[in-house]
């Protein structure tokens, strides 16, 4: 692994995502409206590592879900590389997720009946230009354990399989929702290292949700959310290597 801290990425001119006035309203019960997102304006760029920071209910998961094509906004527009995502139908969103997005969830969501290698192969089977499952697992340092079933792996190992599964398709975007939420510090750091490495080596735009402010130090930019709005965006002068983090 590279010992030097990663150089700050210079933002390129054309954003990967461009959100304007992005709003999401949930109707829970009669006449009860929850504004999960309330007019978000945001641009994310290729090769960036951003952290979305906010309290529970701040709208960060909703934003991530909309970016990932799991949900659609009620109002506002979202463009991916100039293509309008806000008007996409279910079939187009499926295709978008399939080709473009890698997901990592808090609870791993591995298929328990498939081995690590097979969980990754599940994705490489349907992707356009995938790497070999072995290569993806190697990137997250799981080469020797790839024939184990999820039940035979530790939490950190399972999460790293989930990362390998997310990156095996060489996604343009890697979205991680509380990837360390269910893990202890040591394991959490190995997982963050894997995210960091994918972002650096493959140039993937990575967005990580967390409510752990320490993790924000490894990002290029930190986006603070509260009550469905972006309160401020800070740019770190230097990304701190994940392995030096502690909480």
């Amino acid at each position: 692994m590279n010992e030097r801290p990663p150089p700050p990425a210079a933002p390129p001119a054309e954003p990967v995502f461009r959100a304007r006035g992005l709003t999401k309203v949930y109707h829970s019960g009669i006449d009860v409206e929850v504004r999960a997102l309330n007019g978000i304006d945001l641009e994310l760029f290729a090769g960036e590592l951003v952290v979305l920071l906010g309290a529970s209910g701040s709208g960060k998961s909703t934003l991530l879900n909309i970016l990932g094509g799991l949900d659609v906004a009620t109002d506002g527009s979202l463009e991916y590389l100039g293509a309008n995502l806000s008007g996409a139908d279910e079939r187009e969103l499926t295709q978008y997720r399939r080709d473009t997005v890698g997901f990592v969830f808090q609870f791993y969501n591995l298929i328990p009946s498939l081995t690590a290698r097979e969980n990754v192969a599940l994705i490489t089977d349907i992707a356009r230009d995938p790497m070999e499952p072995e290569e993806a697992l190697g990137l997250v340092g799981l080469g020797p354990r790839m024939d184990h079933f999820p039940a035979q792996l530790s939490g950190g190992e399972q999460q790293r399989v989930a990362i390998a599964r997310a990156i095996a398709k060489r996604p343009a975007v890697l979205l991680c929702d509380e990837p360390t939420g269910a893990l202890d510090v040591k394991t959490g750091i190995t997982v963050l290292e894997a995210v960091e490495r994918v972002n650096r080596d493959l140039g993937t735009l990575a967005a990580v949700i967390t409510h752990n402010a320490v993790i924000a130090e490894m990002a290029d930019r930190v986006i603070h959310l509260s009550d469905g709005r972006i309160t401020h965006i800070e740019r770190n002068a230097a990304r701190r290597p994940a392995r030096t983090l502690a909480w």
Partner: protein
Amino acid sequence: MRPLDRKLLRDLTTMKGQMTAVGLVMVCGLAVMIMAHSLILSLESTRAGYYARNRFADVFVEMTRAPNALRSRLEAIDGVQALDTRVRGALRLNLPGIAEPADGFILSLPEDRPQQLNLLHLRAGRLPEIGSRREVVISAAFAAAHGFRPGDTVEATIYGARERLRIVGIALSPEFVIEARAGQIVPDPRRFGIFWMNERELATAFDLLGAFNNAVFGLAPGADTRAVIAEIDRLLVPYGGLGAYDRGEHPSARQLDDELAGLRVSAIAFPLIFLSIAAFMTSAALTRLVRLQREQIAQLKAFGYSPGEIGLHYFKFALVVVIGATAAGVGLGYWLGVLVVGVYHRFFNFPELVFQPNWPAVGLAFAASAASSFLGVLGAIRQAMRLPPAEAMRPEPPADFRPSAAERLGLARLVSPAFRMALRNLERKPWQAFFTALGLVFATAIPILPGVMRDGISHLIDFQWSLTQRQDVTLGLIEPASAAGLHALERLPGVQAAEPFRAVPARLRVGHREHRVGITGLPREARLSRLLDAQGRPAQLPLTGLLLSEALAGMLDVRVGENVRIEVQEGRRPVLEAPVAGVITDFTGVGAYMELGALRRLLGEGRTISGAHLTVDAARWNDFLVAVGEAPRIGTMTITAAMRQSFTDTMAQMMGTMQAIYYGFAIIVAFGVIYNGARIALSERSRDLATLRVLGFNHREVAAVLIGELALLTLLAIPLGLALGTWLARLIVEVSATETVRLPLILTARTYALAVLVVLGSSGLSFAVVGRRIRKLDLLGVLKARE
């Protein structure tokens, strides 16, 4: 309402599809159970009331001629409580507008003494007046078939003499609940009727004045029937007694017994199958529910609910289904019962046959389904009761998987990851897979039963009336005739071929087993009325010995080569030991057959005949009928095509009704089982499936993962189901075989194909329903929830 019961109702609402599937299968079993038990009750109580009220006789006997003076000696037999002596004979009817002649029995009604037994139940009109002439009462079924009313007249030939008879009454008799010709099993009321006439007039017509040729006995309670029969036979030897018999050998009573026996099979076999399947389904559904509600159970326990209360809560799920299914089963069973009673009305002549629901059977049905589902959910309930709260509140550890057997055998490279998931899921929960597969096996097996019934009926009809009986007409003479009699029949207009037969009543004995049966003598190379073996090949009559119906050989427990004691009940009443030379296949009634010459030698007769089987030129059919109508010595005429028609109309209709019921049930079971299995698989796999959708799999790809598993089970279950269905069909054909009718076991590719089609169709439909659910999977919720 207690909160736990409110939870029950809400949970049931969300599981309504599955619970309905389980309930429907239960409804099928309960409906058959209630229908069959209620029909048994209806028939038995109607029969018991009818037999008692109208004093149905216990013992019956026919003889050539016995003087009235013998009456007092018969009455004096120990155990005899009542006696009626009668004149009984055949008559032929010349009905205007009916192409084929009809015939029937005519029985005397006593004039000088009250009638003791087999009292008529008058539907309309009155009995003949004492001393009246040519007044008759006719049977209700015959009257209905022809629209006869009291006051109408009918022309008949009685013992060779033409008479115009005046109908004064229309009646039923407990002797003729099933009103069919001797040796035939299906009623044909257009061509066969029962007549009653004053004794003196009828005795005069049959040249039996001061004598009788038929007697019926009522026995005292506790009388020894066998001893009474033996004494009657002894007394009647000099008078040409044909051997007394009891209700067990009385054609109408016997057939009613056989119908009841068949219902008893249905009342047990089908509910057993359906309720077992329902129990498996309940078990699978509730086990899954308990697993899903693991955390809720832990919380309830943490709040202080006892394991017993929680166990009861989950048992109530099954109980609600059982109560609903019992209510629906009673309704459906009642409706089906009324439907079947409607068919019975064409078959059984009772003064009043109404469908009576058997309420104790409803209670039994409720208890049986409650018990079966309780057994089914016991495992799930125990699991719920045992769960320690602290452990249950932690998420379940990831399921432990390992490579499946197929992969360990090195086939891993051949299968896709989706298929691998299916294989491993099945292997990891072998019991669940086993029960789902078992349900599918039954779902495949059950449609085979109605198929076998359908093919059995059509084979029976073809076998009986195309392969075996190839004559157009069978003529029976009023009494045996010599060779000249055959020539007279051969010379009837239009007759192309004639084959004589000689029939005598006899009692066959093997050890302590015995059976009253007609022995028919046929020419060795019979071409019209043929005897066939099980493979449908003509069986040649041996020069010595007998051929027996396979069923008769079974009843007598006699094998080919063993001896049977033949006691002829006519003429000189010879007794002979003869070997069984072979068995023949027939499906209605039973019979014994000898070579014509051998039978005549046994009887010590010359070239006698009882009648002949004929083929008749269709172009001269009307001339033939006219000539038969004018021939005084012809007693009965049976037209093969008409017999076939009446069988198709009655027996086939009755069986057809049952067949339709079972087809309906088969489809319900198939769909219910597969749908239930699919829903359970969906619920277990929903997290995996939602994950796949998030990762970019489309609906079809995700559905393929789920359906792969079910399809694998279905494919595995189909051959086993076909085997089980074959076995069940064989079992049911065997246990429901009676002397009256035995369905052949005919297994056709069509039956199997239809069974497979039912299962695949149900699978397709279930998969479509589940596929729609996959579209509605909550992608976000499933990712937040813990396993």
